[in-house]
């Protein structure tokens, strides 16, 4: 009886509750970074143009 109590007492109960709101992952930072790198490259090309810079 004691052993049974001890067993049930130790049974871990893990509850997973789904979030009520949809999970939103914000990737704006990464996209902005990529755009910056792209613009950087395009501007580098512009700077090699003797008529412009």
């Amino acid at each position, binding site marked *: 009886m004691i052993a049974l109590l001890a067993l049930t007492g130790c049974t871990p109960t893990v509850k997973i509750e789904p979030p009520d709101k949809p999970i939103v992952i914000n990737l704006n930072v990464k996209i902005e970074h990529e*755009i*910056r790198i*792209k*613009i*950087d490259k*395009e*501007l*580098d090309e*512009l*700077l090699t143009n*003797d*008529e*412009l*810079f």
Partner: protein
Amino acid sequence: MKTKLLVLAAGLLLSLNAFAISLHDAKSQGLVGEQTNGYLGIVKSSPDASALAKQVNAKRKSHYQKIAKKNGISVAEVSKMAAEKAMKATKKGQFIQSKSGKWIKK
């Protein structure tokens, strides 16, 4: 598209000869310098310098606009980034504009 490119190329070739002074010469003679807004500014006022700045800036603007549109950001942002680069690339002895708007010899 092809004809557009041809016209553009011809225009660029012709415009090269249209200047009384080249951009490179104007820069090294201290007539023009790089502004903080990404455009060429006039350091020493002369008809040649202003004509050159006007032409060069018009070309720069169209390029900035193209890049801005392609990447979905404002032209002001593109030109600001260009200004940083142009100032960094400016050779010693040529002029750049300070944040307060003064011309400094690099």
